[in-house]
């Protein structure tokens, strides 16, 4: 019942709007009839269609958007990659941390043999890992942010995820995920959404266009061997 | 002569009379082609069928004759016969009317005759 009501309402409102607009147009056209000849009308209509055609031509030649929709094969490749990242991460193997995914590095000094880490992560899914690095001199800490692919509806949104804030204060390492941010995309789909939506349920299920590994963004804290990490919140995992 | 569209005399009779008048007045000579019904219709702004009827009257009285494919022509003796007929028919009728009107107006016979003679003198 409610479904039908919603459907009826959603149809009724455009119907009313269309009727109102047509009614107003008829009233107006009664006044403009005398100088709107058939020739003007047909020229107007043809011109409108021509403008539409030019818009299409412009869009198809110059309208390349910076954001690409990933093809199925690309999606498959990324899915495989992410699976391997997940696997290595679960094995605490650091080999998935390649330079490809490195986004930002912070280098700071600290005093003493232990580094207290305070993570202000709120509700974000920031993953924090610790790694011992022999190449770092004592008293230094290297914090690196890695962003792994995050795909929603075939779009790689990893660039849109904002970086965390990392800083030293009162000899403590603060890691703050930025507060919520919103990204808006305008997607052009020259087809009928009603049909696509209803058909997707059955036909398009075996190809997930959304791949979003929960741990798609990593903060890796690298310290010289022997440095203690004081993690009072217990969210840091240790990699080999 | 005029055709009176609103008069009580049928138009086709008026047409026939007009043609006779034209013959008497020598505007239509013997053996000359007369107006076709369409010419008459345009001339007097009347229906061609009505004009045709007027012509038919004259044809029946043999004042006109028909040449197949060429139209109607004035009979050779048309003028004489019209004059003869007018004298007998029209003049008699007119005389009748004059006499009746004179009776109504209480004009005596002598007065009427005098009037006719006087009119004759004047129009000579």
């Amino acid at each position, binding site marked *: 019942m409610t479904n039908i009501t919603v459907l009826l309402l959603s149809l009724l409102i455009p119907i009313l709007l269309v009727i109102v607009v047509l009614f107003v147009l008829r009233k107006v056209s009664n006044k403009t009839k005398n100088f709107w000849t058939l020739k003007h009308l047909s020229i107007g209509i043809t011109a409108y269609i021509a403008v539409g055609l030019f818009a299409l031509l412009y869009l198809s030649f110059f309208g390349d958007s910076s954001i690409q929709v990933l093809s199925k094969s690309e999606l498959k490749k990324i899915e495989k990659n992410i699976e391997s990242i997940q696997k290595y991460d679960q094995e605490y193997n650091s080999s998935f941390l390649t330079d490809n995914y490195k986004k930002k590095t912070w280098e700071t000094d600290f005093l003493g043999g232990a580094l207290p880490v305070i993570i202000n992560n709120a509700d974000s899914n920031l993953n924090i890992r610790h790694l011992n690095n022999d190449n770092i001199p004592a008293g230094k800490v290297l914090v690196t942010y890695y962003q792994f692919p995050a795909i929603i509806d075939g779009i790689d949104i990893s660039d849109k995820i904002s970086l965390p804030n990392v800083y030293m204060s009162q000899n403590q390492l603060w890691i703050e995920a930025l507060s919520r941010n919103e990204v*808006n995309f305008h997607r052009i789909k020259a087809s009928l959404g009603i049909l696509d939506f209803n058909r997707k349920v059955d036909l398009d299920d075996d190809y997930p266009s959304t791949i979003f590994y929960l741990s798609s963004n990593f903060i890796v804290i690298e310290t010289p061997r022997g440095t203690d990490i004081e993690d009072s919140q217990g969210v840091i995992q240790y990699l080999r | 002569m005029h055709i009176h569209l609103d008069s009580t005399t049928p138009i086709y009779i008026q047409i026939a009379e007009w043609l006779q008048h034209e013959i008497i007045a020598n505007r239509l000579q013997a053996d000359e082609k007369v107006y076709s019904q369409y010419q008459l219709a345009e001339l007097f702004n009347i229906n061609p069928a009505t004009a045709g009827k007027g012509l038919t009257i004259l044809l029946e009285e043999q004042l006109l004759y028909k040449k197949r494919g060429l139209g109607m022509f004035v009979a050779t003796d048309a003028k004489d016969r019209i004059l003869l007929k007018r004298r007998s028919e029209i003049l008699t009728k007119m005389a009748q009317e004059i006499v009746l009107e004179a009776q109504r107006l209480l004009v005596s016979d002598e007065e009427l005759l005098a009037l006719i003679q006087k009119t004759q003198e004047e129009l000579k």
Partner: protein
Amino acid sequence: MQSLTNMSFKTIVKKQVKWKAKLYSSALSSLIILQVIFGALLFSSGSASSGHGRGNLNVQFSIYSLDMFLIISALWAFIIAILFTTKSYRIDDLSIISSRTSSAIANILVLILYSFIAVLIMLASYYIQIFGLSLMEKDSLIIDKLIITPSIFIVCISSICLFGAIGLLFGYCFQGPSIIKISSIVLLAIVIISPIIFPDFVNLQPFIQLPDLLLSGFYVIVSILCFTLCIWIADKSEVSRK
């Protein structure tokens, strides 16, 4: 007896279509205005949107599809088809060689032609909207599919045509003989009331899931049915000039 003019029915219908297509073009301009209005209203939001929340990131997709333009065009077709049968349009047919049958057939052909042009106008509106969007929102524009597929094109034509056919039938019912008028009102009442009483009875899901061409085929068949009824009613109708 002068010879009578012998014009074939086909020639007369052809001439009528030629003139009606020209004369009714103000209907097409009203479609353009409608679409510009709705295109402007939906400029920032698109026909549909979907949101995804992941961690502290909220991703919002505004989807610009043809849906709204198609719905507007279909409603427009419905209304102008009714208008085609109203007095002001109907009387004009009496000034030229026409019978009710020929003018009904001509109206139908014009409607089909206009459905085609309406799809072109609809696509023009769509691409103009996207063109505007591409200038204003260059960084967040994602082109999934720019060119319409032929099968969707056919679905659009057939659905506009279907709505037009229903509108035309509607209009003809109301100017037909009184028996048809009354029975059509009863039928209409049933059609409106039945989904409210038996909501489960009306299930459009299976129809929508048909492949495009089958769906258009179904629309075309219903349209033809409506058109046939229109011609049948027009054949029986008297001219009412009141």
